[in-house]
């Protein structure tokens, strides 16, 4: 799994952080998403995938390669 985020789309809702705190955080100053782990371990895949789907700004992209 290879994750990327689009900071210009993110609206700072933090849904991803609540679902997958090992993978995502938010910047203190403006709440924009911070990708902690672009290639997380398999046990985080389900939560990362769910984050991408529930992100209200379609700002998270999951690629399957690597």
């Amino acid at each position, binding site marked *: 799994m290879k994750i990327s985020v689009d900071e210009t789309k993110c*609206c700072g809702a933090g*849904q991803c952080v609540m679902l997958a705190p090992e993978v995502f955080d938010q910047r*203190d100053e403006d709440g924009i998403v911070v990708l902690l782990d672009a290639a997380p371990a398999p046990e985080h895949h389900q939560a990362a995938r769910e984050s991408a789907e529930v992100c209200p700004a*379609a700002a998270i992209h999951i690629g399957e390669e690597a």
Partner: protein
Amino acid sequence: MSAPAGVLVVGASAAGLSTVEALRRKGYDGRLTVLDAAAGAPYDRPPLSKQILSGTWDPERAHLRTQEQLDALGAEFLLGDAAVALDVPGRTVHTAHGRALSAEAVVLSTGLRPRRLPGAEDLTGLHVLRTLDEAVALRGALRNSRRVVVVGNGVLGSEIAATAAGLGLTTTLAGLQPAPMQDQFGPRVAGALADLHTRNGVRLVSGVGVGELTRDQGRATGVRLTSGEVLSADVVVAAIGCTPATDWLAGSGLDLTDGVTCDAYCRAAPGVYAAGDVARWYHQGLGTHLRLENRTNATAQAGVVAANILGQDLVYAPVPYFWTDQFDVKIQVYGAPAPDADVTIVEGEDGDRFVARYDRAGRTGAVLGWNMPKQARIHSRLLTGTPGGGRDCAAAATAAAPSA
């Protein structure tokens, strides 16, 4: 309970698409059909009043998913065909093109339709904003105009006024609330929002209704307020709220009081569910029926509907949440700020950045962040588990994941 052989989703926007994705994520491999009256690719609405209206994004950036992502869902998308009737016992939807679509489970996610000013049919220079086409049309009109009047000082009107002022237009925001968004924020934070708009050049006409449109040869030329004052404009935008898109369900036998009425499980009838802006469901934590018009509700509720279609019995009881971006301020609201609540600044300073807590009768009812999205989210944990608060959306969505 076994999974249904087929699921039909009516409305392919945030709630409808989220239902489809949640069903597949939970392992559902049956037949999925998605119907939408609109012909284009599913898109997201929050950017319409912000990046699309300002022109910082091309319209395609508002698309929710790429074509490859949609294809990967293995669902049949029937776009450009409207549902016109629902047979509830037969779980069959009839469409404008003469289709009769039956499924074991039907999801109603047809959202809202904007209210129009009375007597405003076919006037040029008069706009509403709900769809991507309307956003592109309004953007074009603003480009060629000097003065805009926005009617309605709720969240949508306030966002449109902020974007228009940012584009350099002479902007007036008129509405019934004593300050922009006072119903949502209470007087203190609405006062701060009013200052923000005024500082950025928006003229606020608050606490006044619009009596009528002024017109000249089929063109809107402004509005006459109930106070008698006339506000002249090249463009008038009506942002006076929406009504649930349930006209097509008349005669179905469903209770359509302010939306599709559902139980705590988002069920309107056996095998018939509703999600998103159109759904008015029983919120067990709050002990009342509730209909939310916000983006994260659409997705979280869709997650619960998907789980319940697959035989789980999940109650949907989220802490309401929405955000709005105006000028350089990002506001996040968790819970329901009561107008008469005591407001305490719990982080930051009453100014550029703060988190406010709303307490009433010894209970925290809401948390609001002003340019502090992360901190507001952390403070909102206070709301989880408080009486009347219920679980938060993410907890509901997580609980909706299958245990296997």
